[in-house]
């Protein structure tokens, strides 16, 4: 009977809480929810309003406003920084879909500027030159959601504990070689399965091994997936690459240099956007892959030693919780005596 009454409540629903003054903005639920709305979609790197319009018209569910695409950053070298705000504004004015922008790792001031600009999401990205070798941005301080790169479950859950609302594989951006993205997607998937095979006691040790908060690991093992949206990124260049990663269980894909470094960007953009929805249907994929012109030329990851690599950089060293591992010698003496 109470069920019936509840349904009537819904029918007569009136929210009388003073609207936005009492509504909570920028809660984690809303930030992670915005990421959930991009699921099953493709997010494209663009550098001009024209490219942004091509991406929107092709069916991208968001665009990433960049100064240079990763392939150019890789080739030209130099310090890569946040995009010129004027450029980001131009791109935001050109499209109605969400616009994301990148800030350097640990560079919370760039994050604050991007938040003030009103971008829909910030990518704290290893593609730009890191600004802080040890710390990432405390993303709980922001109302705008963040997406962060990860190579394994440990990195992913540490970023989530810092407030990331979305995770993507790091891959090897700007190469056109999808192997690193596959490795990272598989690693995360495998480690979640390992966690699920453990009993509740063993999980504590695994949390220490991964250097992650136990509650996040418990949640992940219960869900059998990351507790936030997980995209693939880094080196995707064809509709088949999209299908491969989607079948490995990611929620959607980022494509950086793969589109605007190919010979026919508008057609390739459409084909890759369609591939995200049709990833399970090889027949449609074969049509989508036909006659797209040359894919980006690319650099195979194993022939890349003269280029800087993103995924081989030393792992982040921050220990975010260490409560049980503290050094007893450093305890205040009089406290230990009493």
């Amino acid at each position: 009977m109470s069920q019936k009454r509840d349904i009537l409540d819904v029918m007569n629903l009136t929210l009388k809480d003073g609207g936005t003054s009492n509504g909570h903005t920028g809660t984690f639920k809303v930030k992670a929810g915005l990421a959930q709305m991009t699921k099953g979609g493709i997010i494209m790197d663009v550098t001009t309003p024209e490219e942004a319009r091509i991406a929107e018209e092709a069916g991208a569910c968001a665009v990433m406003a960049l100064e240079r695409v990763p392939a150019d950053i890789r080739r030209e070298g130099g310090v890569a920084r946040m995009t010129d705000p004027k450029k980001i504004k131009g791109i935001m004015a050109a499209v109605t879909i969400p616009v994301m922008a990148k800030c350097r790792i640990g560079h919370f001031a760039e994050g604050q500027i991007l938040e003030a600009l009103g971008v829909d999401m910030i990518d704290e990205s290893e593609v730009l030159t890191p600004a802080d070798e040890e710390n990432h941005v405390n993303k709980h301080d922001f109302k705008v959601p963040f997406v962060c790169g990860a190579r394994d479950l440990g990195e992913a859950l540490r970023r989530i504990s810092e407030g990331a609302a979305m995770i993507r594989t790091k891959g090897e951006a700007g190469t056109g070689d999808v192997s690193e993205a596959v490795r990272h997607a598989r690693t995360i998937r495998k480690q979640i399965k390992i966690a699920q095979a453990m009993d509740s006691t063993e999980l504590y040790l695994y949390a220490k091994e991964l250097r992650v908060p136990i509650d996040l690991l418990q949640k992940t093992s219960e869900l059998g997936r990351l507790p936030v949206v997980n995209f693939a990124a880094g080196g995707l260049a064809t509709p088949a690459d999209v299908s491969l990663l989607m079948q490995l269980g990611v929620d959607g894909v980022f494509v950086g240099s793969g589109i605007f470094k190919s010979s026919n960007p508008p057609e390739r953009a459409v084909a890759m956007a369609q591939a995200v929805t049709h990833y399970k249907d090889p027949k449609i994929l074969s049509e989508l892959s036909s006659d797209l012109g040359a894919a980006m030329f690319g650099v195979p990851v194993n022939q890349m030693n003269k280029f800087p690599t993103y995924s081989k950089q030393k792992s982040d060293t921050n220990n975010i919780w260490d409560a049980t591992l503290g050094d007893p010698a450093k305890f205040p003496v009089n406290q230990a005596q009493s």
Partner: protein
Amino acid sequence: MPSALPVDSSKKDKLAIGILEVQGAFNEHHVALRKAQKCLNIPDLEIIGVRHPDHISDNMDGLIIPGGESTTISLFLKRNKMDEPLRKWINSKGHVTWGTCAGMILLSKQTENQKIGGQPSNCDTDDIYHGVFIRAPAVVEICSPEVTALATLDRSGSGQTEVIVAVQQGNMLATAFHPELTDDVRWHTHFIEMTCMAKRNSNV
């Protein structure tokens, strides 16, 4: 009012609800529907993932158009020649449709003033119902007497006029917020109920 619950078990054909799986939060709707099914104690509920024009058929009794990017979803529908079959399906008798957020935009006849304000204007509200609004549309004007407003968001506290956030027109339901992102499945149970009722009426 005769109760729609539980579903008449003497009827052999089971309830089938489609979810438009083009882009967006369709898995969340799937999970919420299963939860609602449990609440309502319906033994048989088929959930169909709609990704291809062939998937749109009279076997479906209800259809959910999930939240996502309205631009992306509508382009996909046009490109895959799904827009006309969908429109026909939605307008046929006995078919119940529910659009959340982007789905609401797709069901509406006209939109204006898209996209004002970025992320900070997204909000969580709670009181009678916990609604999650993300880059959400709002109903500015109802242009037809057949449309009834189901829910409004009172913004008098901030000096703004109230906005309509849920509407119904016949067998079409549209909400600006995202019930699929919360644990509260009352909107999903209501939708299943509507679908049951429409199915029974069209079978009589």
